[in-house]
């Protein structure tokens, strides 16, 4: 399935958001959004991905 992960097109095996994080090695403290909507960590396992989904995985960063 083709998705866009953090702005980059990717071909992935994962069928859920939780599986995608495992597949891409994003194991730390992150927050997720799919198609511009927040998906809480508790719902990632049940969140099925579709072809063309835009997934954002955000992590802590310096800020002012």
């Amino acid at each position: 399935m083709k998705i866009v992960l953090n702005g980059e097109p990717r071909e992935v095996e994962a069928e859920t958001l939780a599986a995608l994080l495992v597949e891409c090695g994003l194991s730390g403290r992150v927050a997720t959004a799919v198609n511009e909507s927040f998906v809480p960590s508790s719902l990632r396992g049940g969140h099925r991905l579709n072809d063309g989904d835009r997934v954002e995985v955000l992590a802590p960063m310096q800020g002012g």
Partner: protein
Amino acid sequence: MRAFYGTELPNPLMLGTAQYPSPAILEQAFRASGAGVATVSLRRESGAGQTFWSMIRDLGVLILPNTAGCHTVKEAVTTAHMAREVFGTPWIKLELIGHTDSLQPDVFGLVEAARILTEEGFQVFPYTTDDLIVGERLLAAGCEVLMPWGAPIGSGRGLNNEYALRAMRAEFPDVPLVVDAGIGLPSHAARAMELGYDAVLLNTAVARAGDPVEMARAMALAIQAGQLAHHADPIEARDMASASTPVIGKAFLS
């Protein structure tokens, strides 16, 4: 001291974590200043996020995540939700940028986003202008803190409109107020505290100084001086001189 959503700050300096020459200098700047709050953000995971987070957590300061760079209500609200989950705090520094060059807040969107987030249980720290009516609307939307700008973010111009900031302090005597953005020098930070502000939020002035650690300490000392001066009830300025040395008892020598 006015509490921020029930929390008393250990120190009225809120310090940003961006733009330091190195993580080590960032850490030293925090330790040297004793800042009570660290502002942080969320960006696409690139591998560096987890190390940064463990360093910030070790500082033992309160965490204030921001929505920096957001230009729409939807974007800011979504970012706030993501920040709450990652940082485990209901606190959010709500930034909704309206103008690209001045980074002036879009105050209309800001009020709308503040209302949504308050209803969803967030404790909103709105980065706003020094407009009194916007301040009223933000409070009506559920904000219990206001953070007017001193000058545009990163400009170092200090308090552009001291009159407006003073009016804001007078208008909202019970609301914790923070001058957020525009501070360049310790004297600017001291002035904000002399006006009776509860805290100062700054980043660039420290992070981009030649010696960020010394500047962090200078800011902390200035903020403390300004706060003490405010509590000490300063004299009013006057136009004419007023002799301080007693006139009575002066020798007749002319």
